[in-house]
Structures are given as C-alpha cells and as structure tokens.
C-alpha cells in the first residue's frame, strides 16, 4: 500500500525535517558542525550552565522544539524512535558549554543511556563537566519499587522547563541538576494509545491496536502498556489514567500541581480539551489545585492516536521555575 505522507525520501525524513525547522525559525535554531545537532543561536553563554537533551525523532515538537530562550540550549537528534549517536550528544554538550558545566537532561531508554554515558566520558576528556538527570515519569512502565526501570515521557518537558529556568536564573551546575531532578521526581505520567503509527522507512504499522480498543499505559514507541480494554469515553478515560497516577501517593488534597496533557500526533486538539475538562473536574473533586495547565501536542509519537497525562507536584521553588518566562517552539510563556 502506498504511504500517504508528505515526504521526499523515507530514508531522509529526519534530515529534511531539520532543514524545515531551521528555515522556518532562524531565531530559535542555529546549525552546528554536526548535522544532527541544533542549538539556540545565543549560546554558549559565558557562565551559564548549558542545558542539553536529545532523543529519537518522531516525537515533535520534542525534542528539538524545546530549544530556545530559558529552556534547552542544544539538542542531539536521532533517527525516528532511535537514540542519537554518542558523537551527537557530545557535540551538543560542547556547543552549550559556557564554562559553567552542562546538564544533560534526557529520558530513560537503553540507547540514550549508553550514548549519553559515552558522551559524558568523552566530554570529561575534553575538559567539560557534564552531569545528568534521567527522566522516569511513566508510571505504567514499571512498579514504583523499580523506578529506575521506568521510561521517561512527557514529564521530560517539565524537567527541561525547570532545568532551563534554573540555569537562566544563575543556578550553578549542581543547583540546576538538583532542580531538574526534583522536577522529575515530582512528575508522574501515563499514556493511552488508540491506534498505531508508521515509520516511513519501515512502511507498515509498528504494532496493532484493534478498532474499538485502547491500550492503557502504552509507551511513546508502542512499548506494551498495562492492559488493553474496550475504548472508553473521555470521562472514564480520565479516571482510568488518573487512578495509577494518584495511587503513587504524591498528590493529595491541597497539593498544587502542573497538568500537562499531550496528544500523540493524530488526536484532534478539540478532543484533548474534552479530555482535559474531565481531568480538571476530577482533580477539583479531590481537592488537588491545578496551578498551571498545558494542553496540546507537546510530545507525540508520529501519527499515533492517543493522549498522555503528566502531573507535577509543586513546591515554592518548582512553582517559581515553572512560571518563569520561556520562548521555544513547543512552549511560549511570559
């Protein structure tokens, strides 16, 4: 079957997309010597901690869309659903180093862990101090007792927001790492998938979800969820997804939280708001106070149909950092 897609060559979708991002938003993206590394034009900034991330493509606007003022300084870009090379991570670290060290804030996936680990070693040899925070906010990917096995999903965005704001506020490297770690430690996420997605170079769906069914706890690349159940209306779906998040015990009556609802690529924005209304209503019933909410396509999986829910519990420091101004493609505020 012919794939109905807006592409040139299925093997060059990442290269071609990078051209478009740079052409459309020169105020946000500057090329570097590495073709898979983009940076914010105004960095490196002397004395500021550099913020680096990276990951596979297909999650747009993540990861590159969070490069910008007061957020991510440089990004390593991988093939679709595949980790960037260690060399790309290393060059992103070099591009963002302003002499105060670099915080590499990324998600818990085998390939990313290995490539970042090697890049950190090589950066150290080049005289750059890099410290890392690994996002593991997906409650469906492992029990809390094995939190180190949990994957990083849309909570990464809040980790970058907090880390980027901390660096912009003049925190030192340990301070930035501490703030980003606190952000992700207070994040919990879960996703629901309603349909699969197709990597152009592969040409057939990555996995299958039957019509009329939904997979609770699905990962950003179609990793298996908790269970597959008949499709629920938005109000039930909100309960189904909030339950495992609230069961973690960190959100209580009186807690102030950030709520981030993201589509997975094919979900109409209208439906994300239908879903958000239900989440908001349930949280009000439980006395949880929503300090700030984000609803939109923040972290996608190509054209998967579905939604992810992320909640972050706030304290005074996190609140201040989340509220700070930011200007990136994926997030504009203040």
């Amino acid at each position, binding site marked *: 079957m012919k794939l109905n897609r807006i592409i040139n060559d299925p093997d060059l979708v990442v290269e071609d997309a990078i051209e478009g991002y740079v052409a459309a938003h020169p105020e946000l993206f500057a090329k570097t010597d590495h073709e898979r590394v983009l940076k914010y034009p105004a960095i490196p900034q002397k004395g500021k901690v550099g913020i680096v991330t990276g990951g596979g493509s297909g999650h747009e606007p993540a990861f590159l869309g969070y490069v910008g003022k007061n957020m991510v300084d440089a990004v390593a870009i*991988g093939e679709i659903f*595949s980790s960037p090379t*260690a*060399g790309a991570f290393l060059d992103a670290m070099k591009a963002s180093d302003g002499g105060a060290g670099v915080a590499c804030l990324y998600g818990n996936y*085998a*390939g990313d862990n*290995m*490539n970042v*680990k*090697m890049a950190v070693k090589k950066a150290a040899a080049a005289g750059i101090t890099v410290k890392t925070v690994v996002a593991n906010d997906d409650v469906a990917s492992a029990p809390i007792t094995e939190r180190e096995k949990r994957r990083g999903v849309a909570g990464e965005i809040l980790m970058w927001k907090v880390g980027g704001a901390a660096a912009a506020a003049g925190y030192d490297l340990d301070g930035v790492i501490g703030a980003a770690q606190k952000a992700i430690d207070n994040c919990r996420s879960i996703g629901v998938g309603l349909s699969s997605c197709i990597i152009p170079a592969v040409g057939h769906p990555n996995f299958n979800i039957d019509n009329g069914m939904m997979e609770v706890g699905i990962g950003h690349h179609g990793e298996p969820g908790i269970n597959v159940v008949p499709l629920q209306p938005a109000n039930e779906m909100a309960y189904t997804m909030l339950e495992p998040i609230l069961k973690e015990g960190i959100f209580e009556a009186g807690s102030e939280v950030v709520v981030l609802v993201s589509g997975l690529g094919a979900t109409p924005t209208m439906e994300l708001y239908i879903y958000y209304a239900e989440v908001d209503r349930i949280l009000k019933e439980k006395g949880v106070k929503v300090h700030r909410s984000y609803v939109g396509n923040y972290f996608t999986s190509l054209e998967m149909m579905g939604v992810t829910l992320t909640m972050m519990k706030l304290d005074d420091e996190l609140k201040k950092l989340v509220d700070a101004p930011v200007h990136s493609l994926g997030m504009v505020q203040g």
Partner: protein
Amino acid sequence: MSEVVVIKNGVDVVDDLINVIVSNRDYLSEIDGAIGDGDHGINMAKGFNICKKRIDGKQLTLSEALAELSDSLMEGIGGSMGPLYGCIFTGWSDSVQGKTELTKEDVQAMLANGMSELQDISPAQKGDKCLVDTLFPATDSFAQAVKDGKTFKEALNIMKDAAAKGRDSTKDLVAKIGRASRLGERSRGVLDAGATSCCLLVTQLADSIEARMN
C-alpha cells in the same frame, strides 16, 4: 602448527568482519523484521561500510583497525547497536594495542575486555534475547578452552560452537530487552537479530585468525 598468529595488517582482519556483515545485510534485516524494526542489517551494514571507507588501502595494527571500526559504529549508527558493538570493539582494540602477533592468551584477554566494556554500559544479561546470548558464551568458552590446555585452533573452534549455540538459544527465548520485548510471548520462536550478527562476527574473527596460522 604455530601457537602465535602474525597479523601483518589489521585492516585485513577488520575487512573480513565488514564483509561478513555487509554480505548478510538482507538476511539480518529479514530476521529483525519478524520481531523488531526490520532495520538491523541496514543499520549494521551502514556502520561497517563507513569503516570500510575509513580504512580502505591503509596499513594499521589490529588495534588501530578495530578502533576505526568502533568509531565508525559509534558515529555512524545511533540507537543501541552503535554503542553496544562500539564498546565491544573498543574493548578488543584496547586489549591488543601495539600487537602484531597474537597468542591464544591475547585473544582470551581481547574477548574478555570486549565483554567487560559492554557490561560497563549495558545491563543486558544472558537470557534477555540479545547479542550477549552469543557474546558471553563465546567469550567464556574460549577462556575455558585455554584453561583446559586446548590448542589455539581447538579453542577457536570451541568458541565458534558456543557462539552458534548461543545464537540458536535465542530462538526459544522471550525478549526481555529492546523493541522486541513489546511482543512478550510472541517474540518466541524467532532468532534474535543481534545475537545472529554477533555470531557472524565472532565466527569470522575465529576464521580470520585461523587462516593466518601456518
């Protein structure tokens, strides 16, 4: 038969490794297609071909040639396979620095160092249905053969057998790591692509060393 193998040009040995991967490109992708992305052969061939361009026509020690292979994979292919194989070949390369002759003890140390570098970055265990299901038994069996006083050639053959058995063992395993782990029980009954490429590489290494015995 001499128990010392002379490696005049490391490029020749690495060329053999490149050829075995490139000529099995479609086969590896086909295996991967059953339970993975179907791109293992394409990615591996891409990385090994980058190395081919870098070393073609050069005179290098085995250590230097393996280092070129490692860099090519780490730079050329991301994901998990780049760093996994990159680390194995870094380990092999570091262990034989400056050597133009190999004893069986050298090969034993080389294999062990590759395994150790890999374990440094990956928590993968035997039984996870991945390349370590080939690499670990191959490495261990060679060490055991040396300990048991086998000849160099015997030890290489024992290693080849262990690699093939390791590869075949993945057929009955359920994937615990990588993309195929999504399939759970459905991943059973199919060889793992990484374990298969690892078997090709280990077997080719043994054959290339044996071909230089006289």
